[in-house]
């Protein structure tokens, strides 16, 4: 198993853990956390591919991750603000109780 594959496996596992958490936990914040984990897994992939890829001097992976981190920060801020706003309104942040948008 090459280092790249190791990284990718770790990333895949991290992604799966994040997905499992996001799908199974009731609390909205933990769902958001799971999504963050999935995003981080993707970041790890980028770094790994940059590190072991063909053209590291292009810095594509690093750049992507830097932007991704910035976007993740924005996403976390907005997401958590939404959760707080929803909590203020419904007095709960459990996702299975928030079904107003039901089709």
């Amino acid at each position: 198993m090459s280092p790249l594959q190791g990284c990718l496996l770790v990333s895949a596992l991290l992604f799966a853990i994040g997905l499992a958490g996001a799908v199974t936990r009731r609390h909205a914040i933990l769902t958001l956390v799971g999504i963050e984990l999935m995003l981080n897994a993707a970041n790890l992939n980028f770094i790994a591919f940059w590190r072991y890829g063909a053209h590291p001097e292009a810095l594509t992976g690093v750049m992507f991750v830097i932007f991704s981190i910035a976007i993740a920060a924005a996403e976390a801020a907005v997401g958590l603000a939404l959760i707080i706003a929803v909590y203020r309104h419904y007095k709960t942040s459990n996702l299975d109780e928030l079904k107003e948008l039901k089709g």
Partner: protein
Amino acid sequence: MSPAFIIIAFVTLLAAASAMSLRNLVHAALALTVTFAGLAALYLNLDAQFVGFAQILVYVGAVAILIVFAILLTRSGDTPDQAVLAPGWTYGIAVSAVVFTMLGWAVLNSSALPKENSSAPAATVKNIGEALMSKYVLPLEIIGLLLTAAMIGAVIIALREPGKTKMDDGGLKIDKTATPSAILNSPSSSGGHS
């Protein structure tokens, strides 16, 4: 596959699993912080120094704090009594397992992986800065705009809903109506006889 990588990866994954499974949300958030730190260490291990530090600065220093703030503001800090798992969680676990299986199988059997380049690439801060200011200047500007928009949006979303009482500046309540006698005679303050 250095031992350092294995150890860091193990810690990171363990922390991630705890973050997703601990009942107490604050513990989960702290475990998440460890995960972020571990990821930063993985980046360092992969010679991406700047990204690693940025990961710590943003995730540990900001996102984790945001998350614990959100937990406290939604009064979810205590260990919940009722179920922490959503209905239908078994499907979720199954889906995740299938996803991991597929991904792992794909990683291990893919012929499309690039030929590995074992020498550490040069990703100095100067290189990154130059790339950001030349090739990636437009994305940088856009990200700046996005962050500003997100900040304003988050502030507006999390603002107190209109019509509710606004805090006076700095906790110093200036109450013009309450006279001492009114407060002394109020029902809440006359509970001393019990």
